[in-house]
């Protein structure tokens, strides 16, 4: 497939999925909608995570920070500003924080970056707690006036579609190319004229804006928010997990993984809640070990490859156990002596 065909295909898939998403509130049950909502939330979060962190290989654990910032913005401003403006503001504030945070930490790579973003998230959480406690005099906030459920659903759907669309668009622009270049060899990209600093900041801010908007949209479902729930690091962890298992470098990987996980979560949660989380962990480990490209990189060839690998390994083991190998070694040594 050439470039244009690929684009058409992606657009068609996105269009079809959007249609499904739109019809859900009319066709599906109450429960389907709320499940769809969680699913869409993770589609948006992990797709946007993949957009920056996937292509540049900067492992950010700060998603929950931006999510929480969005949620708090919403809690503070919803009554004054109205729904759309609040979400936009949530995105803007999160992006702003991301730029400040990024300026401080984006020169560090790898584990340092991951650890720092995690530390920053905790710092923001504690700072918000402290601020609320000492200035506002309370910790949580109650969102008394909230929009209809369908409004929330459609908003999150729109955000998810926008995120996937954004991800598609960025991949076709210089920005996407630059992000990819940074992931492959940051210094080489620099010497080819990429202003990596700005590119990284822009990518990071984009990721944050989506997370902020999603946080703002989701917080109203909870009526009451406090730093502990909205800055919950597990929101970030889960996002990373889903993106990586799906394939953070790919466009559709995070989406596929988010859907798989929502289904898995609902079916397993009722029977054996711990098993769900355990399988999440196990899947991640298996993915990292045997499928570094994620679920989206799964092809028929992959199965074949695994099969061949296992066979070869088995053969080798058999040779070892039957003593064939030792004999061979001995033989070759004797030959050398001769």
């Amino acid at each position, binding site marked *: 497939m050439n470039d244009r065909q690929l684009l058409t295909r992606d657009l068609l898939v996105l269009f079809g999925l959007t249609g499904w998403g739109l019809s859900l509130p009319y066709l599906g049950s109450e429960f389907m909608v709320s499940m769809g909502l969680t699913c869409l939330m993770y589609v948006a979060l992990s797709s946007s995570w993949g957009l920056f962190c996937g292509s540049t290989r900067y492992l950010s654990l700060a998603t929950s920070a931006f999510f929480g910032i969005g949620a708090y913005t919403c809690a503070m401003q919803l009554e004054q500003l109205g729904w759309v403006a609040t979400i936009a503001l949530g995105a803007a504030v999160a992006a702003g924080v991301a730029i400040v945070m990024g300026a401080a930490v984006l020169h560090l790579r790898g584990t340092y970056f991951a650890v720092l973003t995690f530390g920053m998230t905790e710092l923001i959480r504690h700072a918000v707690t402290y601020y609320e406690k000492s200035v506002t005099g309370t910790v949580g906030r109650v969102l008394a006036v909230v929009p209809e459920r369908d409004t929330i659903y459609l908003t999150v759907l729109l955000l998810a579609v926008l995120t996937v669309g954004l991800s598609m668009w960025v991949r076709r622009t210089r920005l996407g190319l630059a992000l990819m270049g940074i992931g492959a060899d940051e210094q080489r990209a620099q010497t080819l004229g990429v202003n990596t600093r700005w590119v990284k900041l822009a990518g990071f801010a984009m990721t944050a804006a989506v997370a902020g908007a999603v946080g703002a949209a989701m917080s109203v479902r909870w009526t009451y928010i406090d730093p502990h729930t909205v800055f919950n690091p597990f929101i970030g962890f889960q996002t990373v997990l889903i993106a990586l298992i799906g394939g953070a470098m790919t466009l559709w990987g995070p989406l596929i993984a988010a859907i798989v996980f929502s289904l898995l979560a609902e079916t397993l949660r009722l029977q054996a809640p711990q098993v769900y989380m355990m399988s*999440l962990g*196990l899947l991640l480990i298996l993915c*990292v070990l045997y499928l570094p490209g994620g679920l989206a990189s799964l092809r028929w060839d992959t199965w074949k490859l695994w099969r061949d690998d296992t066979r070869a390994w088995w053969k080798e083991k058999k040779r070892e156990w039957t003593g064939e190998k030792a004999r061979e070694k001995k033989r070759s040594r004797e030959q050398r002596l001769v």
Partner: protein
Amino acid sequence: MTLGAWLELIGSGLITGGVYALVALGMNLQYGLMRILNIAHGEFLMVGAYLTWMAHTSLGLNPLLMIPVAFAVLGVAGMAIHFLCFRRLVSTSPNLDIFEARGLMVAFGLMFLVQNMVSWIWGGDLRGYDFMTDPVQVGGAPVAGNKLVVFVLALLFSLGLLALLRATLLGKGVRALMQSPVGAQLVGIDTKRLHPFMFGIGLGLSGVAGCLLSMAYTISPSMGEPYTVTALIVITLGGFGSMGGALLGGLLLGVVEAIGMHYTNPSLKALLSYIVFISVLLLRPEGLFTRKTRKA
């Protein structure tokens, strides 16, 4: 404040610091030596705590007896985990950066796996038991007996590990490995054997920490994460892979927190430790106590 009160305050900070140092030991070894940032560290610590709690409440064993048991059980588990996960990672990762990132992800998976396995086996209740909580007078200041044990053992383990790494042949190999994995291979150090072994020791140490902490604190399946974070902060302060640094870092953090808490607000404490953590990472990523030797 009187001098006595000051000493008492610093003493309590030192003891908490000892706990921090103990918590950081295993993680430090794993990251410093093998570049595996074991995010699941706190979870393994929790396993140690649960084993001890179970042995104490249902079998009536003395928790102190459980120290070697916890070490052995988790040590073996660690070697198994290394064999199953990290061995393959080492061979398939194209470079150290990618290995680190993937190792981190595997550890993430382990975190989810272990935490929920424990909650599956033992349930989510808060647990605890009473052991050596009577205060002991140390230089006029009362200190809980179990905390004192924790502190003394933290010191012993840190210093022991330090001595082991400095003085023995094994230590030479390990240190060579820390400084340059390739170089170590070149001079004939068998990384294939040493890696799983050291990973096992790392986990064993977290088991010991868990065992000791279960005497002083309540335990639950979700207790792990804060300890992981503490360990991270401590090894950042001390410099990744430096045993002495971690000990000093832990003690320093304990004292600073105690004094900070006394003068300001305990609520600020969390904020304070994260600020310290982040500024150290940004300004002195090689740790507070290591001399600045940036290699060309």
